[in-house]
Each structure stands twice: as C-alpha cells, then as structure tokens.
C-alpha cells in the first residue's frame, strides 16, 4: 500500500471504502506528520488533533453503519478565515488571536456534514491581505519546495499543507488570487468558483464583492469532489446564487475535444517570466493535443485590473474591518483613557501594516470629494472588464494563461514593495472583478519551483474548468511531484 499521505482524496476514499485503513488511522498518520514537520513550514495556526480524531472515529462508525457522506473520514484543513465553532479563528491577525468562534461557517458545516475530518486551521496573510503569507501575525509560511521561498498568499498555509502532504485538501478564499497564486507557487490545484457559488457566511470578510471560497488539492478530481460539497445556495448569504450544483465528478472524465481555448495576448507580455511563459505555453499545447483549439482573445481593459482592484478591495475592507473595535470581541487595548483611545490603540495594536495600509487607502477612496474619482470610477472600470470577459466568452469556452508572473519568490524579497507584491496577482484579479470561476493547475517547474496554468471560465463554468484540468492532469505528472523534504 502506498503511503497514505501521498494519496489523493480519491485514492484515500477508495482505501477507506475497501477497509485498507480507517479514518482514525489516516487522521493519526497525518497529525503525526504535522507534528513532526510543520515547524519547518508554519502552515498551521491551530491543530485540532483531539477534535479531528473524534470526527474520524465518528466517520468510521458512520461507515460501519452504512452511512457514508461524500467526504466520509477524509482529512481536510480549513483556512483560518472560516469560523469554526469552539475553535480559535484568527484570520491571521493579532486582532483575533483570542477569538473563539461561537458558530460554524456554512462551508465548515457542509464539509462536516459530508463527513470530512478537520485537522486544523491554516496560516494565512492577515485578513487575507497579502500575496506571500508574510503579513500573518503568526509569521510567514514557508514553501515546501524551498523553505526560503513564499508559498504564495493569502491561502499560503493551505497551499503549503497540501503540497507538503499534510492533507489532501484545504479550503481557501480568493479575493484577488489568494487560492490560485499559492496553488501555482506550491504545485497544487486551486479553484476559485463563480462569485455566489459558495456561501460566504462565516467566512471573515475582506472585500465582500470579490471574496469567494474554494479549495486547494493536488488533483482536479479532488477539487471537484470537495467543491461539489461546498457549493450551493445559502439563505444566510444574500449574494449566494440559487443555481443547481452539477455533479462535477460525473463529467470530469469527458473529452475536451473541440474545446475552444482563448489566449489573452496581454498575459504573455513583458511582465511574465520567460521560462514560466514557456511552461504555460507547453501546457496549452498539451490541451490542444487533446483536441482543443486555441483562439486569441482580446481583453482590452485587463491591464486596469490591478489598479481597479486596489480601489475596490480596500474600500470594502475599510468598512468590513470597522467591527474590530475592541468593544465586543478581539484585541482590546489595556487601560484605555477614553473611547477614542480604546478605538485607536485597539486597532493600532491589533492590525498589522498591510491591513492598516488598505484600511487607509479604502477610507480615502470612499471619502467625500474622492468617491467619484476613485471608487465610482473603479466600479465603472470593473464593469468594463466584466464586459470584456463576457464578449470573449462568446467565442471561447475557457481562457488560458499563467497564474502568476513567476515561480515563488524569496521571503522578504517583496515585503517592502507593496506594488511589486500586488503585481503578483496581475493575471488572477480579473476573474474576481468579473465574478468568474478560475482554476490553477500545476504545469511544470522553473528552477525546481512549480508554476501554474490558469484557466478562467464563464459564470458557473466550474465543470469545464475541472474537466479541462483533469484531462490535462491525466497527461501530466507535475501534480504528483512531492517536495523532497516532505516525502
């Protein structure tokens, strides 16, 4: 029997089904790995070993009783942005270092109901603001492929965990690329579904109109398995959409013959690392070899996506983070002199630099006299970008390109240069602005570091993304490569 930790969810599900091992055995094995190896990565904020073993025992009992959920007994990790009842939920911030959530997020509830076993909560950029996991109050996460490098962000703890074989799947959230970029930088699969596909209830908000939950796995097939459980309408989230959830696994094996793949010229411009571009082109060639055709598409306003994002997202975050005031929960400054002092110091002490930078930017673009020039203008450009995509999807089924402009960068390299850091999301942000689903699939290595192929689909096009990713992974082995120190 192959080592359990190296197996995909699909393989593990089969093993559990056959009785090769129990969920308790599997869970214990992975918890042991985390205990032994996470010192190197810092991927976890909280390990919920006792709860996990209990859940695993319940899953084994359910299986014995013939009561098997879609993810029965399968271990996962939650990004620490999802509220988990009775468990510390920090969002990577000192502000919430003492916050025990009194309730479960919808995503947490759904995965638990399907029988998934939660190993713990993964480290992340503070309030999901960052692309390198360096803004976390709990310290940066390291990339299993090179401990000197970033695993990407903000879902860096999730991507590093899946790459390091701590778990076959980890949840993530993606506001501007926070699932896909870390997936690309760690050689994992990351899917951000259509905005409204997965409930945001219980997911601590960064930028409400852009935030979307998804999952990081090693195969598209596993992503399909988990997403199928996560997705669906939730009456507690007014922006979730009442649209039937297809059986993603049912069509994943179908051919992609005739698939029209759009290539965006701007995505292969000067900003892209040459070798990364070459891997992506090679991946597109593989997809063509499966019967797909490529078409050049134009997204004339896509170059405006980063500046647009950095108006809209901070504006929303400046408001969303107002509730962290030291009054009802979270960090509270000691010996406040008065109310203003309580606010200023609680927030001053509780938030890190990047969060403060975005709150200030956001408050500025919403302020009287600047609203029209910044926020309103950004919303108009956002609409143009969405329209561009809509036009493009009249002619193509997916749009393919690089996920990130280069492989993982060294920790510390960009931390003092926000603009450089922001540019890491240049290819991913468009999908958030337009609310479109997108996936990153491992497509090779540059200097021994993984890079990702980015596929964007039309609204509710998760099925075609997963199918395309799966068909590509049937032809390639990139996702099977395991970082040496974590085999």
């Amino acid at each position, binding site marked *: 029997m192959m080592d359990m930790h190296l197996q995909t969810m699909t393989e593990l599900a089969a093993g559990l089904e056959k009785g090769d091992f129990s969920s308790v055995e599997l869970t214990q094995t992975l918890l042991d790995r985390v205990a032994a190896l996470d010192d190197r990565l810092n991927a976890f904020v909280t390990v919920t070993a006792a709860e996990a073993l209990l859940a695993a025992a319940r899953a084994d009992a359910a299986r014995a009783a013939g009561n098997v959920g879609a993810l029965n007994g399968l271990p996962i990790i939650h990004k620490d942005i*999802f*509220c988990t009842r009775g468990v510390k*939920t920090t*969002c990577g911030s000192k502000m*919430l270092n003492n*916050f025990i*959530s*009194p*309730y479960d*997020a919808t995503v947490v509830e759904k995965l638990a109901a399907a029988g998934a076993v939660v190993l713990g909560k993964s480290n992340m950029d503070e309030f999901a603001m960052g692309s390198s996991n360096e803004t976390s109050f709990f310290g940066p996460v390291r990339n299993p492929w090179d401990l000197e490098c970033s695993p990407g962000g903000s879902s860096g703890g999730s991507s590093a965990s899946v790459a390091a074989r701590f778990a076959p799947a980890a949840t993530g959230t993606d506001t501007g690329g926070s699932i896909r970029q870390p997936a690309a930088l760690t050689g994992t699969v990351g899917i951000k579904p259509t905005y409204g596909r997965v409930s*945001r*209830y*219980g*997911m*601590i*908000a960064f*930028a*409400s*109109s852009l935030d979307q939950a998804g999952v990081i796995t090693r195969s598209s097939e596993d992503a399909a398995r988990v997403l199928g459980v996560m997705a669906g309408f939730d*009456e*507690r*989230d*007014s*922006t979730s959409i009442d649209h039937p959830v297809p059986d993603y696994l049912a069509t994943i094996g179908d051919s992609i013959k005739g698939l029209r793949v759009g290539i965006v010229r701007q995505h292969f411009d000067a900003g892209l690392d040459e070798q990364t571009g070459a891997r992506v082109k090679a991946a597109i060639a593989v997809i063509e070899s499966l019967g797909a055709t490529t078409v050049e598409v134009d997204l004339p306003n896509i170059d405006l996506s980063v500046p647009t994002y950095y108006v809209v997202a901070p*504006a*929303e975050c*400046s*408001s969303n*983070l*107002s*509730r*962290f*005031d030291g*009054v*009802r*929960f*979270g960090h509270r400054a000691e010996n406040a002199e008065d*109310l203003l002092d309580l*606010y200023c110091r609680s927030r001053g002490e509780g938030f890190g630099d990047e969060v403060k930078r975005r709150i200030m930017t956001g*408050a500025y673009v*919403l*302020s*009287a006299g600047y*609203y029209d020039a910044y*926020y309103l203008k950004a919303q108009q450009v956002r609409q143009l970008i969405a329209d561009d995509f809509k036009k493009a999807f009249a002619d193509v089924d997916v749009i393919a390109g690089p996920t990130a402009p280069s492989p993982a960068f060294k920790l510390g390299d960009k931390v003092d240069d926000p603009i450089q850091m922001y540019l890491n999301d240049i290819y991913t942000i468009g999908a958030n602005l337009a609310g479109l689903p997108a996936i990153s699939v491992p497509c090779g290595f540059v200097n021994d570091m993984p890079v990702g192929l980015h596929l964007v689909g039309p609204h509710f096009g998760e099925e075609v993304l997963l199918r395309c990713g799966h068909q590509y992974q049937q032809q390639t082995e990139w996702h099977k490569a395991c970082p040496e120190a974590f085999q």
Partner: protein
Amino acid sequence: MSAAWEVVIGLEIHAQLATKSKIFSGSPTAYGAEPNTQANLVDLGYPGVLPVLNKEVVRMATMFGLAIGATVARRSVFARKNYFYPDLPKGYQISQLELPIVEHGELFITDANGNEKRIGVTRAHLEEDAGKSIHEGLDASSGIDLNRAGTPLLEIVSEPDLRSAKEAVAYMKKIHTIVRYLGISDGNMQEGSFRCDANVSVRPMGQEELGTRAELKNLNSFRYIEKAINIEVERQIDLIEDGGKVVQETRLYDSDRDETRSMRSKEEANDYRYFPDPDLLPVEISEEFIEAVRATMPELPAAKEARFVDEYSLKGDDAGILTASRPLADYFEAVIAATDAPSQIAANWVIGDLAGALNRDGLDIEDVKISADELAGLVNRIHDNTISGKIAKQVFEAMWEGEGSADDVIEARGLKQITDSSAIEAVVDKVIADNPGQVAEYQAGKDKLIGFFVGKVMQETKGQANPGQVNQILKDKLQS
C-alpha cells in the same frame, strides 16, 4: 417672534416598522427585554456574519409609499454609513442613500389660517437602528444594550415646507396617523418607535435663499417638538438680531432646562463614506408586487374623514377627531351599525364621555370598558326617549363601572324616563301652584323664567321626565 422672520422647518421622522424580527436578522424586536437578550451574532456584528433582508420591511415601505402618493422605486439600494460608535456593532449602519425605496410623496395639513397646505415628502428609506448606550447605575463605566440594534426603521424626510412649530407637529401627527393606520408602526413615542430630527432655520420674510440650519436631534413627543422648535427659532432670531450668525450644527433639546445645546458642528461632522453594501442585493420591486400591496391598503385617514363627513353628516372637527386613530374610527362605525339614532348622537358620545373616560383612566381605545354594541344600546335608549341625555351620563358611568348594559342599569336604578303626559302634567301643576310669584313674573313677560320651572319639574321627577315634554307642557300651562 418678530413678524420680519420666516421659519423654515424640515423633519426627518424615524418610524420603527412593526415587524416581528429585525431588518437583517431573525432576532425578535419586542421592546423592554433584558439587555442584549434580543441580539444574535448578526446584530452583534460578529466576524463572518451577513445580513439578510427581512422582506416584510419592503412590503411596509411600499404601503407607506402608496399612502402618500409617492413613487415606489422599482430598484433601491442599501448603502453603508460608516462611523465608529460603541452602540453601532459593525462600525457602519446599513441604510439607503442614493436610491431610497420611496420618493416624491406628499400629504396635506391644515395651516394656521385653516387652509389646506401641501407638505412634500422628499423620500423615505429603510435602515437599521443602532443599539443603546447605558450610563445610569454603572459607576464610571458604560454599558451597551444591542437589543435595538438592527430594528427596522423607515426614515421619512420632508421637504423644508413647514413654516411653524405648529405645522411641524401637525405634519408629524399626520404621518403618525398614517403609519398606525397602515399597521406598519405602533407609533409608540415613549418607547422610541416614532421620533424625529428637525432641521430648523430662519430667514428674513421674503428672502428666497434659505438660512443656515441647525438640526435638532431625537425629539420624541409632540409637545417637545413644538417647544424645541420654538426655542430654537427664538435662539436663532436673537442671535442674528444681535449681529451673530447661525452655524450649521447638530443640537440637542434639553427639556429640563427648556433650551437647545450644541452637540457638534459641521466641521466636526463625520464623513460617513457611504457606499453600496456589497453584502446585499439591490431591492427589486415588480409592478405586480406593488399592485398586490395596493389591494391590501386600508382606507386612509383623509379618505375616511371625507367619508365620515359625507356619510354621517358629522359637524365641525368631529370627523377628523374620530378618524385620528383607526381603532377609534372602527369603534365609532361599530356603534353606528348597531343603532338607528342619528350619527351625530353616537359621535358626541364617542368623542365626549367615552374619550373622557378613557383619558381619565389612561386607557387606549383598544382597552375600552364599554363595547361598541353596549354604547349603541345606550344611544338607542336616548333615541327612543327611555332616558334623557342627562340621565344617560349616569347610566354611562355605571356601565363603565361594569354594572351591565344600558337596559340593566336603567332597570336596576329605576331611571326610566317619565313620558306619561298626565304624570308630567301633575308635577307641572304642583310646581305652578307652589310658585305663584314666578308665574306672575313669567306671565308679565319674563320668558327666561322657563328655565326655573323646568328645573323645578326635573327636580321633582329626579331628572326622569322627558325634557321636551316638560317644556311643552310648562309653556302650555303657563300661558293659560
């Protein structure tokens, strides 16, 4: 006030909508619960929670829009009003700014000259209430009660069409009546379910341009509104006449000292950084929905008043008084339905003795101790001359004290009116015989003495003689 000044007032009324649960959460809205027992995670603004619109508020706002002849927006948008305050859990209030649900309404009040005056309603928008800070009994610290946080409010903004404190009160009373008629607010001012802010300014009579305004916050009784506005107008005029300038600011009315005090000036005012709330979809309202709501609209005060005048031929202000509250109007109509007596008699009883007794005992019409049917029974006995109006007052009091129906009381107390002419004649004869001096004076032309004789007869009959008959018989006998 000097006649050289014109007062300009606009009101922002906050009417709490009478929903069972809050505007964006399932918590109950009942008043008076223990602090923080009616606030769930959404009301507390916990990390990760999201608002979900209570659709009932949309129906209620639509009703209000239709009642004031306004445009009900096919699409309205919730926006966040950002500011920090301990009783504002999320650090923003969800309200409506650019696209409110109701716009361009109007209603009519009666001005000082008795003329009908149109008051424009600029807009009415939906928003959530904040919580409450508590300072009493907590030593040096402050408490926060979030029971009220998330309570649905309809903020009704008037045009600056009001020209006196009296007009402001008349307008506010109209709105008060309308929301209670529609059943969309209990209008309870003591509990804060109906309150207003008043924007007050003065300008030299004839000047086009508006003066600088002050905003009086949180006025929650009709009396205070009138006093606060008058005091503020006086302050502004004195200030200007002394060579000063009114500054744009928010002021608070102190009812103990009967003065207004500055809370914050415009310079200190918050920049609320409004923007559309990304957690909520725009509210889309279809034509069908509006028509369905229209079909459920009750008869409104103005229409009801007109009908009362028309149908029941009521005098003076009676129709207005009876239609000021829907339960009172309903009560009146129930009395009418159960009697053949002229409507005016029923109206007199409802407005007079019944309203007086309610007022005396501090009761609402809903708690009335005499049912409409019972009051109709009393009115019937007056109408068929079983008792006189005067005796009826006695019967009414006994009924109020629970002694039974009008017939029960009349029977038990032997109050039946004497309508037997011969019995009355006998008493009249006795009175004439006992008072020869007065008879002589009367017959000499002192007509006014008739009252004296009537009084004597009524005294002898313990008030039970039919006054009309007494009059007639007296006149006949005195002349002969």
